[in-house]
């Protein structure tokens, strides 16, 4: 990866971007393709008015820069949220408004060049889409939305990170039907192993129900949990077992991940369709999302948007656990966890979502030494791997040295021994950060701790 301040240098290498691009469609004049994609999106979606509104009202004051952890770490002007937003707004103004076309013809001349496209692609993928800048903007512009739109347009113009595209291709069209390409037999094996593990360690008989009809919940964790976050998954299962509700995992579709949020609305909608379809196949009443930030947000936000009449209520496992604790269905031993614990708010469920208090209440109910990060809650720093960057291995250096820098300093400052966070992406990024910065702490999921403290 080249953390180069000069995009022209990087464009000389094989790929102009710091991530690998999976070419979509035939290559050609990218500026023209970009404009066509932009026009098609303006024509068929709701974005035009907001782009127009932003381009009229943007004050270009630069207050967002103070809140952007990427800019604070890199110091590169291209990382200022407002600058990034204006890359897109300028294209809109120049090509899609009469006044802009007039001015462009008189003053500037058309300016959408190959370099500009490269610049945009690089900038939009250096953004973590954490939407922290939105809180600072005096006008209330949603820079995260523009990043979302910019990436959408780029992907329709054929520029999208290979890591995301390949995963989504496997999820939607591949044989396994999930982003991690886990075959169903492997999954079932794994579930059996987890059952044994739970029986061995906790002495309880928890079943992982698969394809059970008419369950209360259909469970969609991030699929990586099955392989990498077994403790979290066992924690989830134990809580569900303790609350006595019925739940199931769909055999035909069991992946909560939705990379569409990170780069393409079409993909976003198709994944939601698939997810809802599986829920209806099993006649489940509610969708239960596991410990995953963007999965929770996409399910909560876009199932009602895309599913229409087939829409289902969406519940996060954190909500469920918190409720169970309050109702006294879970017995948690407050003496189990003796280390100092802190909690990292994933952007998608804290700032862009609805889960600020439940995870804290869960942790505080059995953790003696709980400290908050500064800042935390809606103002928290992103882990540094947001907007799908953590899935792109080639961005490792960027994530460690730039985007995750603030986070690492923040973690070091709080002095916790355990960082709990309910997001698969955050956990991966934070673990890498802990390794990279040699921080004396351990990164776990919230339910890992819950499981450790649970008594039967």
């Amino acid at each position: 990866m080249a953390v180069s301040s000069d995009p022209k240098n990087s464009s000389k290498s094989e790929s102009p971007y710091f991530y690998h691009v999976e070419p979509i469609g035939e290559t050609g004049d990218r500026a023209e393709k970009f404009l066509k994609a932009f026009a098609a999106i303006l024509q068929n979606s709701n974005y035009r008015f907001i782009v127009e509104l932003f381009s009229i009202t943007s004050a270009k004051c630069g207050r967002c820069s103070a809140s952007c952890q990427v800019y604070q770490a890199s110091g590169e002007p291209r990382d200022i949220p407002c600058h990034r937003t204006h890359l897109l707004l300028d294209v809109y103004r120049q090509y899609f408004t009469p006044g802009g076309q007039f001015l462009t013809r008189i003053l500037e001349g058309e300016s959408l060049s190959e370099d500009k496209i490269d610049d945009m692609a690089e900038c939009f993928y250096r953004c973590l889409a954490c939407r922290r800048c939105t809180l600072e903007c005096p006008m209330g512009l949603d820079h995260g939305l523009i990043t979302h739109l910019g990436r959408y347009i780029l992907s329709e113009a054929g520029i999208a990170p290979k890591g995301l595209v390949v995963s989504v291709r496997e999820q939607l069209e591949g044989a396994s039907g999930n982003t991690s390409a886990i075959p169903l037999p492997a999954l079932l094996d794994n579930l059996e192993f987890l059952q044994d593990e739970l029986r061995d360690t906790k002495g309880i008989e928890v079943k992982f129900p698969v394809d059970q009809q008419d369950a209360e919940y259909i469970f969609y964790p991030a699929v990586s949990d099955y392989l990498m976050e077994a403790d979290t998954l066992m924690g989830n299962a134990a809580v569900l077992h303790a609350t006595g509700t019925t739940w199931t995992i769909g055999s035909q579709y069991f992946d909560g991940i939705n990379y569409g949020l990170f780069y393409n609305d079409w993909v976003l909608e198709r994944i939601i369709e698939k997810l809802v379809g599986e829920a209806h196949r099993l006649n489940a009443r509610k969708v239960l999302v596991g410990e995953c930030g963007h999965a929770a947000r996409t399910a909560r936000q876009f199932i009602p948007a895309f599913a229409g009449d087939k829409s289902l209520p969406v519940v996060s496992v954190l909500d469920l656990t918190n409720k169970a604790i309050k109702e006294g269905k879970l017995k948690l031993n407050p003496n189990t966890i003796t280390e100092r614990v802190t909690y990292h708010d994933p952007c998608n469920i804290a700032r862009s979502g609805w889960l600020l208090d439940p995870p804290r209440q869960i942790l505080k109910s059995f953790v003696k030494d709980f400290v908050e990060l500064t800042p935390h809650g809606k103002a928290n720093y992103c882990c540094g791997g947001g907007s799908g960057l953590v899935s792109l291995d080639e961005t490792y250096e960027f994530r460690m040295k730039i985007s995750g820098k603030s986070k690492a300093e923040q973690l070091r400052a709080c002095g916790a021994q355990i960082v709990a966070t309910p997001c698969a992406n955050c956990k991966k990024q934070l673990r890498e950060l802990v390794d990279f910065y040699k921080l004396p702490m351990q990164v776990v999921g919230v339910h890992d701790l819950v499981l450790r403290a649970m008594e039967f």
Partner: protein
Amino acid sequence: MNNMLRTWIKDGLWAIVFAAVVAAVIRFVVGLGAGSGLNDATPWGMWIAFKLGFVALAGGGFTLAAVVYIFHLERFRPILRRAILMALLGYGSFIVSLIFDLGLPWHIYMPIISWQHHSVMFEIAWCVMLYFSVLVLEFSPVILEHPLFKHKFFQVILHGLHKAILPLVILGIVLSTLHQSSLGALFLIMPHRVHPLWYSPWLPYLFFTSAIAAGMMALVVEGFLVERWFKRGMHFDLLERLGAWVPLPLGLYLLLRLSDLFLRGVLPGALDGSWQSILFLTEILVCGILPIGLLAIKKVRESREGLLTSAILIIAGILSQRMSLSMFAMRQSTGLDYSPSLAETLIAFGIPAAALLIYLFFAENLALLGDEIPNPQATAKLRPLWMFSQDTPGRIIFARRSGLATFAIALILPAMLNLPISDTSANAVQPAIGWETLRIDGNQTGYIVDFPHVEHQERLTEQLGSKESACATCHHLNYPDDEATSCSQCHTDYYQPISIFNHTVHQKSLGGNVSCVECHETEHVRQSAAICQDCHETMTAQEGESVFNPFASSYKDALHRRCLNCHEQKAVELDKPELALCSTCHTYYESDQLQTNLP
């Protein structure tokens, strides 16, 4: 014509319409007098002239209806609908324009209940009413054919209309014959106003024949415009036939007009070299005889340029006849000139602009133009980039039109509000001179009053308690040199010269009414009066001064001394000491008007 240009033209038309709407509102708010340039000497103006034009261009409606239905020339049917629509829009414009022109438009129904069959205007009102209804009926099949009206109810109406078309057509021909000629007859009663070269006892016949010619040629021009606008072929063969036949009505019109002028001995006036005579000759020769000659040549007639040129010339000639008759060459009495106001002009042009837009709307949405005639010039449709959006057409139109409307309103509104500011700007205030006693030319007449500034300052400061508020009483923004506040706010009689110059006293002392000419040599108005120093030598220019010195010692003192001198003198002479008392005269000051206004 590319899409861009078409959009611009449409937007331009919309802009005119928006401006006209603003002008219309202003015309109704401020009234006919302030909203138009009309006056007592010229009660009819541009709107009447335009109305005559609208109706002349609408002449194609009944002509084509007669050609198709009466003369059974079925091949003209493809352009019949356009002709009917043009007539409809022409008469519609006439009616809309009438609403602005009438002083009391809400009495427009009066001719229905109050008959006065001796009036040409009465006949016109009825003919327009009836013929417009007939046109609506004649045109409504085109609307009812639209899929929107596929309900059986409308189909029954449509069927009925098809059945009744012949009586309708005959009624329409009768009505428009009467109406077209009556419009000419309107001017028969005013030989004292119409220029002799345009006046004729045969005006009804002139109007009728020329309306046929103008209507036919309007169809030709319209054919060319439609071809350009909609990028579709036109019925050139039909238009060429119209061109071949138009010399008949046009020639008849010219013959009638010229022979009448000749018989009445007015024709030599056409050679007197006045601008009216040149206009008349142009109308006859360039716009009448020349196009007849052009159209007589088959080769010219069958060329696009030849036909179009002739058509435009003929239309120009006939419009010129209508407008000269009713506006340009209208003779006035004295004193007052007529020039159309901005609002009037905008309304006059806004109505045909709206008619054009309605025409385009009908042509775009109804089966008006008939079957497509392939046109080799057609090109692919291009959409401007900024139109890429999911916005509804309504939103796009609103966005574009409201932008235009903003500027149209902003430009028109201030231009048409009669702002008092424009008067003062023409005659800027002269700065006051001096300090303790300012010399102020308050009413900008060159007559200057000495204003005891310091005295005012001191008195007001005492009254109001602070120097700041004292200054603010007169100085609008508290600063010196700001003359926004006029003395007349306190001295209410400031601008009334009668209080300074007592007209009655002068009149009496000089010997009553006979004496007016002593001062007013030409007209009995103030402007023409003799200047004071003619009699009052004390006001004559002093030595070393080039002009007469109008400075008086002060507003009050300048005149008060005169009264005092006289009063004191008479008090002694007549032995009436009360004459010298202030209260003898100054009961006036007790009147509440001055008491309250004087600071």
